[in-house]
């Protein structure tokens, strides 16, 4: 007996009892759908986290000044800490091996004005390395380059958000904007960046799109600090050559900065990759839990199939007897019933895939949970449903094959 014929017989059995088949499949449908939806939610969360940390740079170590009150600032200064400075950057560059680039940045909050419009913004003085280290993308013009930096030029690059607020449909490049009492020429506009919605260590949550970037050299010369005790710079972003050495490098960086700050802990170190790994670990536990629930659902679905198949075998004893009498071998009967179970579970699997994909799309459309369906999750869920069919179809099929033809042919 060719296999295609078994499939035909199985399909016919299935369509003869549509409602019963549907009920039989229900467990598989739920199981497969939940596996796919669960994996897509997990994957969505993972991608969001990766995107977030990629913005911070997975090869980076970020040293950032702590947020301090004026009293705290005074206290650390009296304890001789000079605060974060360009000197720290130079020392790290000299002493720490495996550092490819260091970007220093200094910040103030100021109003940025163009014609009659005014926006509160973070004005950030940066070195040209900043652009490469932090994966910024320019959409128009250029970023702060060596010429701007060395010449301490009065230029600036705008975040996508602030560029839009100030200029709207106007062309920003070449225009002059005013920050405090300085006039700066806009030389570039950045592409929009993902919102930084969570505070990570010393890095506060904020919208990077409202930042204005200027050459650090010019910034230090021309912009006044609110407090004379303020540090020279607020952040150092250190890019290492090999991400495997992130931990050792960060320990070394910490030692150096600590010594230069006379053991004052007026700074914090953030390692985006470590945070990413940690978050991933937490997510794994969560994923495992969801996976277990989905697996139980598939198991219950499998038991449902077995239950119906056992009843079907009883109901069809006579048919089995007839088939045996005209020459079906045990393995023909076995194949027939396993095929039926598999056809049911595959059909349930297909419906489950459709349901799971729709579910995850619905979740991403109607909630702020982002989902992402990977092909492998569909393959896994589907393969699992086939396995369930084989496993739970086996026992009923074996029962069917082992019926004695003499008895089953006379079964009423």
């Amino acid at each position, binding site marked *: *007996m*060719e296999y295609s*014929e078994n499939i035909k017989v199985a399909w*016919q*059995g299935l369509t*003869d009892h549509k409602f019963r088949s549907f009920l039989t499949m229900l467990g598989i449908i739920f199981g497969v759908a939940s596996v796919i939806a669960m994996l897509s939610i997990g994957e969505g969360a993972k991608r969001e986290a990766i995107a977030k940390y990629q913005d911070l740079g997975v090869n980076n170590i970020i040293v950032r000044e702590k947020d301090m009150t004026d009293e705290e600032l005074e206290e650390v200064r009296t304890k001789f800490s000079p605060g974060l400075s360009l000197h720290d950057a130079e020392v790290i560059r000299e002493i720490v091996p495996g550092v490819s680039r260091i970007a220093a940045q200094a910040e103030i909050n100021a109003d940025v004005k163009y014609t009659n419009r005014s926006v509160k913004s973070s004005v950030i003085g940066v070195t040209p390395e900043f652009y490469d280290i932090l994966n910024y993308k320019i959409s128009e013009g250029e970023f702060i380059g060596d010429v701007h930096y060395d010449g301490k030029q009065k230029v600036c690059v705008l975040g996508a958000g602030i560029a839009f607020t100030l200029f709207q449909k106007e062309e920003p490049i070449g225009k002059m904007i005013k920050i405090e009492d300085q006039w700066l020429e806009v030389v570039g506009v950045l592409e929009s960046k993902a919102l930084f919605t969570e505070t990570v260590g010393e890095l506060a949550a904020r919208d990077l799109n409202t930042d204005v970037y200027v050459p650090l050299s010019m910034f230090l010369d021309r912009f006044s600090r609110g407090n004379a005790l303020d540090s020279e710079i607020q952040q150092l972003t250190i890019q290492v050559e090999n991400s495997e050495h992130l931990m050792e490098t960060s320990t070394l960086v910490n030692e150096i900065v600590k010594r230069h700050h006379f053991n004052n802990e007026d700074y914090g170190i953030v390692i985006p990759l470590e945070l990413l790994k940690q978050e991933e670990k937490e997510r794994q536990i969560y994923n495992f839990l969801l996976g277990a629930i989905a697996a139980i659902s598939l198991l219950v679905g499998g038991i449902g199939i077995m239950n119906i198949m056992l009843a079907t075998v009883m109901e069809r004893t*006579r*048919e089995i*007897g*007839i*088939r*045996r*009498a*005209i*020459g*079906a*071998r*045990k*393995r*023909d009967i076995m194949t027939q019933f396993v095929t039926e179970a598999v056809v049911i579970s595959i059909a349930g699997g297909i419906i489950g895939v459709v349901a799971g994909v729709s579910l995850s799309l619905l979740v991403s459309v109607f909630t702020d949970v982002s989902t992402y369906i990977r092909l492998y999750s569909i393959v896994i869920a589907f393969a699992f449903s086939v396995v369930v069919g084989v496993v739970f179809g086996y026992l009923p099929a074996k029962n069917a094959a082992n019926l004695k*033809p*003499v008895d089953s*042919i006379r079964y009423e």
Partner: protein
Amino acid sequence: MNDKLLIEITNITKRYEMGDNVVMALQDVNLKIERGEYLSIMGPSGSGKSTFMNILGCLDTPSTGEYKFRGVDVSKLDDDALSAMRNKEIGFVFQNFNLLPKLNAVQNVELPLAYAGVPAAERRERAIRALERVKLADRMHHKPSELSGGQRQRVAIARALVTNPGILLADEPTGALDSKTGVEIMRLFDELHREGDNTIILITHEQEIANYAIRNVYIKDGTIHYDRLNTNRTIVS
């Protein structure tokens, strides 16, 4: 050796154990059947004739003794080989037809060929020929439920014939039919015997049906009481 010899049964017994009781369903049965014979096996219920039929039909094996079919000892075969024997050498016709209700006539007739691994196209062709032989080709797309009792039995006979088996084994073939239809079925057997040179074994408890056969075997209490030529055979015209 007689090359017309088809079946040779020597000292067969069949024992059933029910708790402490041992029931001898068959005891020292000997029988030889030649190709082209038309015989009936008759006996009252409980005589062991059903057990005997099961053994003849390779649905069951004897406890002791030898059952040779075309010289092959069937009693020593495993389940797969017995299935193959049933498929190729035995054509069953049952009292209650035993057609598969979901399949139409021609699909029912094709089924033994499917288990024999015959390709689909050839299978259909042979099934149609078998249905033509029982004069039911025009009903080939009907489901059993759409056919009369006599027609169903014809489909069953076509299914039995389709593999060109060594024997047609008919178990009370007219038991579920009215007498007129029963006679028609018996006429069909007669034709198959005369024209097709088929070996036919009728299992029955009715003398009337047994009388259609050329040779009568009578079983009682698990042994053969007589085995003789039928002198007053019912001839169907």
